[in-house]
């Protein structure tokens, strides 16, 4: 599975952006940059008009606050337009939006404010905040191998870990999908229902029970296993795990790449990640548990969990 924007060849890896084309989120960032500059200039030169326009009573404090916000906007705008990777500056816009919302909120408490105008301004800033956050999230994902959101709206996750065991042992353990619940935290059970078919039960976000069937689409012993879900509910997804021997007996590099197509496409994916859903972190933790199992025979625990009590009662995790 090729990662968007980054060229990976077999012989040498070039971690650079491919081509000169701009992603949609980058075009959006440029728009936000110019918007910042425009707003910043207005706030600096005509702070009274701006304050009046958003319904704030015009006085010395609101004037200097507005000017300060103007400076902030200018800095963000110039930053976005100058940098090749403007994600950090777009995130600074998100922070600025939050600051503006707080200031507007405080404005409601003041006397002699125009509440209708304040409400309209607050709604506008809230809308801009969402656009900024989505744009920043997409820009961040654009330069990351661990998680990307493609133009087509799929979520791509890629994680690697090095395990101090030969590839064949790792391949065998992974290929027996009934082992999955031991290291995939959200998976409750996997039943083999055909030669290449398995039935999965898992816990989704907010504890929703999820079930789906999956097929192995490709397998090369001790090298690679690829699979794909047959159901589009909860969402279509596919994955591949590769096992590559590290040089000089340094174990095996395990690479997992997963692709999810959430309902609603990229917007859902972006919103979910903004709300703290971190599929790349989940994959990382699952891989860590896989490594622990393969190297030590158990999943390392500091705090008791129900699963650990069960497994000990059933005679250990080995």
């Amino acid at each position: 599975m090729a990662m968007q924007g980054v060229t990976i060849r077999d012989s040498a890896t070039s971690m650079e952006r491919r081509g000169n084309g701009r992603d949609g989120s980058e075009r959006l960032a440029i728009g936000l940059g110019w918007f910042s500059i425009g707003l910043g200039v207005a706030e600096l030169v005509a702070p009274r008009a701006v304050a009046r326009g958003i319904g704030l009573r015009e006085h010395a404090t609101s004037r200097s606050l507005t000017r300060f916000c103007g400076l902030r906007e200018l800095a963000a705008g110039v930053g976005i337009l100058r940098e090749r990777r403007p994600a950090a500056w777009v995130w600074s816009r998100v922070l600025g939006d939050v600051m503006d919302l707080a200031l507007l909120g405080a404005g409601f408490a003041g006397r002699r404010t125009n509440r209708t105008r304040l409400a309209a301004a607050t709604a506008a800033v809230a809308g801009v905040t969402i656009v900024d956050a989505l744009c920043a999230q997409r820009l961040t994902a654009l330069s990351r191998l661990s998680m990307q959101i493609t133009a087509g709206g799929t979520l791509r996750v890629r994680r690697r870990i090095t395990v101090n065991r030969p590839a064949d042992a790792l391949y065998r353990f992974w290929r027996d999908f009934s082992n999955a619940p031991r290291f995939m935290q959200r998976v409750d059970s996997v039943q083999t229902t055909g030669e290449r078919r398995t039935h999965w039960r898992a816990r989704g976000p907010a504890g929703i029970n999820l079930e789906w069937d999956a097929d192995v689409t490709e397998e090369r012993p001790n090298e690679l296993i690829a699979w794909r879900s047959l159901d589009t509910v909860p969402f279509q997804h596919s994955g591949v795990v590769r096992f590559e021997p590290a040089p000089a007996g340094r174990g095996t590099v395990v690479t997992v790449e997963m692709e999810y197509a959430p309902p609603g496409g990229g917007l859902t994916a972006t919103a979910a990640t903004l709300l703290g859903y971190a599929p790349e972190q989940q994959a990382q933790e699952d891989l860590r548990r896989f490594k622990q199992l393969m190297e030590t025979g158990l999943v390392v625990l500091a705090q008791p969990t129900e699963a650990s009590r069960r497994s000990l009662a059933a005679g250990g995790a080995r």
Partner: protein
Amino acid sequence: MKATCWMSKTDVQVRQVPDPQMLNERDAILRVTSTAICGSDLHLYNGFVPTMKSGDILGHEFMGEIVETGPAVSDLKTGDRVVVPFPISCGACAQCRRGLFSLCENTNPNAWMAEKLWGYSPAGIYGYSHMTGGYAGGQAEYVRVPFADVNPLKIPAGVPDEQVLFLSDILPTGYMGAEMCNIQPGDIIAVWGCGPVGQFAIKSAKVLGAERVIAIDRFPYRLRIARERAGATETINYEEIDLYDALKDLTGGRGPDACIDAVGLEAHLPGALGAYDRLKQATGLESDRPHALREAIMACRSGGTVSVIGVYGGFIDKFPIGSLMNRSITIRTGQCHVQRYMKPLLERIQKGEIDPTFIITHRLPLDDAPRGYEMFVNKEDDCLKVVLTP
């Protein structure tokens, strides 16, 4: 059972808590017979280590008697006396196989927290915040010992607790600090900090053949112990004497061949620079106060080694990288790979080459742990090391 719990900054209490449970087949449960307060516990006490939660059980220096073993622990049995090293190691990952036990890749279940702050995660540690695993510590009546088949060291009958308790951390840590100096005949070693680890670094430097060892501190009683018990040949009270001037004088104008930082993140410095670092630390602009490290680099002989065994947590500034780079200084550091040193150091103790009990100044029942922390942190009653007995 009773356990020493971190409740909040500078609030430690001995409380009733549930007994530890076996969670894995490679676990053992230990009845603690002796435990100690470590200087690094004071960083937790003073609130400088993030990810502590109210109620966390403290303590990573402990020993005792095995009372229960998991089915996969074959070489230990109930009743065995063991010392437990503070880093928890799996014995199977690439780092453990290389002998870098405190860098075990598998034993920190909260590795992601450490990765956020440090890039990658080291091993899990008992009673030392959630960032290093959130494991319950050993300043308690009982403690769970994970990977009991690879970590604990069995202690022969007849060797008293106090002789071997410090194999759990500070003796190997001091020893590794001296070993990293790669001591050659004629070498002069300077040691910043004459707390327990500093004392053992001084002792170890002598054992490893240093010609002279210069001890640096600001408490006369600690400097006295360094001279009279650890074997320091010279001592400097940096609050009374200009440190660089003195070190230059004592080393024929060249600087110590190696410098050991046994101080870490709560270094003291009189004057404006010290006040400046305190202010930055208090306001979160830097997490650690690195005076000892700065001085060790600046004072070191060109081409010499700075060995850092004092604990640091986060970020520092005014780091003398120019001095380090232009003068070919080597920095060596790390949490001690205790498992590597326990057996050889036990042999040295049994032969009488090292008697680690000279640092003990206070023996208290576990119930008095809060008083022990208070005395240690305030250096009351010439406190150097507190041993607790459950």
